[in-house]
């Protein structure tokens, strides 16, 4: 990276830390520290909600997905507008009017303390691991793709986030998140602008879209052929709209990381508007990020591109070695590069033929034949990239399993972005990572103190004590997350973290809806239903990831595969079903007594 670009990054980091730390002066009581004084405007909370959800790896991997497989990933987000409307009609007014610090306090007013503590512990467990993963994942790409040492990016991001979250609390989190989200937007549009600006004149954006469509990269509306495909393919309309619906209900409605953002609103209306901002902006934003990946693919169709993005690193590593194995690898590498260069030329020729046919208004059959030829070249290039990936592994480079496509964005940033703009995009990556770290640290600290530590004490906590304890808890969770990022390594823990999210969200949201809809479900019914939902989802997950077990148990020929998004629906249904069944054995109470005033537990 050029010095000026690094200076842009440093200036951004200094500003964010200063902006976060100065919010500490606004903290006068617990409400200020935990809920930003409940005086936040909808646009700040809305940007914070979006920034919390969009991590650096979202930015890097999503563009990588756009580059390699196209825009199918967009299906994942299609349910967000519908989920947000449901949340605005349900939990947002419930939580806001209850005057609570954490979503789990509401559960105590409706069920009992065990339900609140169980939900809080599930949240703490699932989120604690995620902080380390959110820091670790982009650090690999920044280290290999940009040259920033892994220890440096983890330490800088982890410690800076801990510092300004500890001092400024929720106000610092929301205000810095909002600014970081704007930097992310700026970085994304800067990249898109450069990629489009530098396309050949005879191609342009319309030609790029035609080529991407012909290569099968614009699949944004995919109907599954049958139920099996709907369950096993994560990116189709059914899994996106139905599985995704319950995933986002759980993530935005029962995860303290997000709930704490919109609880900071000055009114119910402001909180609702903040969530509806995502309803309007999230799908277009993801569309643009994926389109950026597709545009980078189109850009490298017409400009010199490496056979795979770690080519330069591999070449340097092999140059340093003198052993016979390295000589053989060098030879294979040279052949691969020659093959790749020839294939790239052929792909460019096929692309030219397709665009010429489009300009000549050729019939559908002729266009289809040219699209098939282009896709065949793409498939050959993908094989060569896989061969490159295998060479990376054989040469013993670090992170051999990391998808090559994840380096497309950073390669474009380092080699193609003009000076200054590259710094802005680098700042956008840091902004994405940091905004996804501060929110969990802040909410982990809040929930651990309010829902666990405060309940273990014999006397109620004073406001000053609550602020002090939450500050210490913020330091604890921040340092734990930063430390965990160093020890995660290449273990499958990141995948597990993502899976844990889907294991818990549906069940967690289910218990809130159970509390509202089934008035006879009281006491420990909440905790039992929640535990049942979690256990069933874990069992289903174990079953669908072990085809042999399915064959043994059910004697089926074709084992069933269920993608993780469906776990949310399963968890929700089990919690509702178990809760309703148990409620049948409970004595009937008048509705007024069944739904207690939530403010009673708001302490």
């Amino acid at each position, binding site marked *: 990276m050029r010095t000026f670009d690094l200076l842009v990054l440093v200036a951004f980091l200094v500003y964010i830390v200063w902006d976060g730390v100065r919010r500490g002066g606004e903290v006068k009581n617990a409400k200020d520290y935990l809920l930003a004084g409940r005086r936040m405007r909808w646009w700040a909370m809305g940007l914070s909600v979006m920034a919390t959800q969009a991590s650096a790896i979202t930015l890097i991997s999503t563009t990588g997905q756009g580059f390699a497989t196209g825009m199918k990933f*967009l299906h994942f987000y299609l349910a*967000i507008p*519908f989920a947000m*409307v449901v949340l605005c009609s349900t939990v947002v007014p419930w939580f806001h009017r209850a005057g609570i610090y954490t979503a789990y306090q509401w559960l105590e007013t409706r069920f009992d303390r065990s339900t609140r503590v169980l939900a809080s512990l599930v949240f703490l467990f699932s989120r604690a691991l995620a902080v380390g993963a959110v820091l670790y994942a982009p650090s690999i790409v920044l280290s290999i793709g940009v040259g920033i040492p892994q220890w440096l990016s983890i330490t800088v991001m982890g410690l800076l986030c801990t510092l300004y979250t500890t001092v400024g609390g929720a106000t610092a989190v929301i205000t810095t998140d909002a600014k970081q989200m704007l930097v992310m937007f700026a970085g994304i549009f800067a990249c898109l602008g450069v990629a489009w600006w530098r396309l050949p004149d005879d191609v342009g954006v319309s030609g790029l879209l035609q080529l991407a*469509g012909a290569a099968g990269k614009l699949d944004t*509306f995919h109907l599954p052929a049958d139920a099996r495909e709907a369950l096993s393919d994560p990116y189709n309309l059914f899994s996106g709209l139905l599985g995704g619906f319950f995933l986002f209900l759980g993530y935005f409605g029962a995860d303290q990381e997000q709930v704490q953002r919109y609880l900071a609103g000055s009114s119910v*209306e402001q909180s*609702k508007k903040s969530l509806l901002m995502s309803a309007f902006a999230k*799908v277009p934003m993801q569309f643009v990020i994926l389109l950026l990946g597709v545009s980078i693919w189109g850009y490298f169709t017409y400009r010199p591109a490496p056979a795979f993005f770690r080519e330069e690193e591999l070449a340097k590593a092999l140059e340093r070695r003198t052993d016979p194995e390295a000589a053989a690898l060098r030879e294979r590498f040279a052949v691969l590069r020659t093959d790749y260069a020839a294939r790239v030329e052929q792909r460019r020729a096929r692309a030219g033929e397709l665009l010429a046919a489009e300009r000549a208004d050729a019939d559908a059959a002729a266009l289809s034949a040219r699209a098939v030829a282009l896709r065949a070249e793409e498939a050959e290039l993908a094989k060569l990239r896989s061969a490159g990936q295998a060479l990376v592994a054989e040469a013993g480079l670090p992170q051999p399993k990391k998808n090559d496509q994840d380096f497309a964005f950073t390669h474009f940033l380092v080699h193609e972005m003009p000076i200054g703009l590259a710094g802005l995009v680098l700042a956008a990556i840091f902004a994405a990572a940091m905004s996804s770290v501060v929110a969990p640290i802040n909410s982990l600290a809040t929930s651990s103190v309010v829902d666990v530590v405060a309940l273990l004490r014999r006397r109620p906590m004073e406001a000053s004590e609550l602020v002090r304890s939450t500050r210490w808890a913020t330091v604890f969770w921040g340092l734990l997350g930063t430390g965990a990022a160093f020890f995660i390594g290449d273990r499958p823990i990141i995948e597990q973290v993502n899976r844990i999210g889907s294991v818990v969200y549906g069940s967690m949201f289910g218990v809130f809806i159970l509390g509202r809809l089934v008035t006879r479900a009281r006491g420990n019914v909440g905790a039992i239903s929640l535990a049942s939902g979690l256990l069933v989802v874990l069992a289903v997950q174990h079953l669908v990831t072990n085809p042999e077990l399915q064959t043994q148990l059910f004697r089926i020929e074709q084992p069933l595969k269920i993608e993780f998004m469906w776990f949310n629906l399963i968890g929700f249904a089990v919690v509702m079903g178990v809760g309703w069944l148990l409620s049948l054995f409970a004595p009937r109470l008048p509705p007024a007594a069944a739904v207690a005033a939530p403010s009673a537990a708001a302490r």
Partner: protein
Amino acid sequence: MDDSQQAGRDSRDEAAEAVEEVAGESRGRHLMVRALVWGVLTLVLLWWFERSYRY
């Protein structure tokens, strides 16, 4: 300001707050309906986009 004036002022403030809350809820409902329409419109636009570049 005597007590009756203060009481009158408080009741006017409460009434204004209640009116604002009702107006806020109405605005919120309108926005939610628009979000639902936007969700459906997004699906239609994506279908049109995919179809426009299908070969």
